[in-house]
């Protein structure tokens, strides 16, 4: 395994320019959670010209709907959900300045093109490793859309949160590279 790249959020264009598909990355700092319903509402608010409930510039969005926290814990199980469902909204969030997205599974060609344009990378966390990933989250706070329950927007504070760069801004795609190497 390659030595992991360490990143602290919020991310800058320079951080993004240094990342290549297949890089292992450990993230420190804050991740913003949002999945289907939160994305839909964020984009609807933008369409109506409203001010968003949080600043998105430089942020990394984590596609996750955690399970409820046990008493005394910041969070329950918290692995990534499948990303393509957010493809319809992702470009709008990139226009607002997000620099990273964490999920699992492939993205649409349009989203991959937008990532190059807006300098944003797509990371994958290990799907179905929600217990292991929960241990990397030290704090969680609901910051918007509490009525959405597991789909509310949270700020997660993370330490050594492990992800892999899937799509970089140079056209690299770790899924395509991986399959090409092992297809028989």
């Amino acid at each position: 395994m390659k030595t992991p790249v360490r990143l602290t959020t919020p991310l800058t264009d320079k951080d993004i320019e240094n990342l290549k598909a297949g890089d292992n990355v450990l993230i420190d700092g804050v991740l913003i959670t949002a999945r289907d319903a939160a994305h839909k509402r964020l984009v609807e608010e933008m369409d109506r010209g409203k001010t968003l409930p949080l600043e998105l510039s430089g942020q990394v969005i984590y596609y996750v709907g955690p399970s409820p926290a046990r008493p005394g814990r910041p969070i329950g199980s918290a692995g990534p959900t499948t990303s393509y469902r957010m493809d319809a909204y992702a470009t709008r969030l990139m226009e607002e300045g997000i620099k990273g997205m964490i999920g699992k599974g492939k993205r649409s060609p349009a989203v991959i093109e937008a990532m190059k344009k807006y300098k944003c990378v797509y990371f994958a966390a290990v799907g179905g490793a929600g217990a292991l990933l929960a241990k990397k989250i030290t704090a969680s706070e609901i910051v918007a859309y509490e009525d959405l329950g597991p789909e509310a927007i949270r700020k997660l504070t993370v330490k050594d949160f492990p992800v892999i760069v899937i799509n970089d801004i140079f056209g690299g795609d770790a899924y395509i590279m991986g399959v090409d190497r092992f297809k028989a």
Partner: protein
Amino acid sequence: MRQIDKQTIVHAVKNLCIEANYNLKEDLTSALRMAREREKSEIGREVLGQLLENAEIARKDLYPLCQDTGVAVFFIEMGQEVSVTGGGLYDAINQGVREGYSEGFLRKSIVVHPLKRVNTGDNTPAIIHLEIVPGDKIKIDFMAKGGGCENMSGLTILTPAAGIAGIKEFVIKRVKEAGSNPCPPIIVGVGMGGNFEKAAILSKKALLRPIGTRSNDPDVARLEEEILDEINRLGIGPQGLGGSVTALSVQIEVFPCHIASLPVAVNIECHSHRHAEVIL
């Protein structure tokens, strides 16, 4: 006629929901360990190691194996010589789900209407498949079925002329298109025969067999092996990052069908295959 109190079922269902979401069954951990042995990709082996570690953390530190604790799916075999007292069977199951998902700190993932999409708040209603069988027992099989893998499933009705080649092509195409989405290494449930709805139910029921067991029908068992081999040559690998283990098992259930039809359903299951059963 034997009688079972509703509350006995509520309690049993509650325990099944919690058990399945925290304890990965031995057949699956052993399949993951074997997969790690034969996986050719370094990152693939690393991922499989993390999945085994995840199962350890879930069990010891009480975190659900996955945050998507699923739709509560039940396959129930109800003996015709047993009756439920004190309330209805379906109410008992839904009450058990309500209690299990609340007390087990499991995520509530059901919306009340496919278009209105407001969360029901207690993970009910469950999806219940009921079969009446001889005897005086109730067998309850519970599966926590995640959304990510369920979304990658599919059904077709082939012509009889399409035969084995057509079946293979359809199943493998589903897995290839699903790629990294359903959290590989996956388990592939296939329902073959019956009709439109029967094939779909069989494809889910096929997942309840212990992982890696083959069909009793030697021709079907051979087809399971052949499809598994072809899937594992796609190169998708653990988490879709490339590798030689894309599926842990292909499991086919069959049923007689119409002279005109060859229904085939594929139900894809993620590596976090959570199910538990009890006989009351």
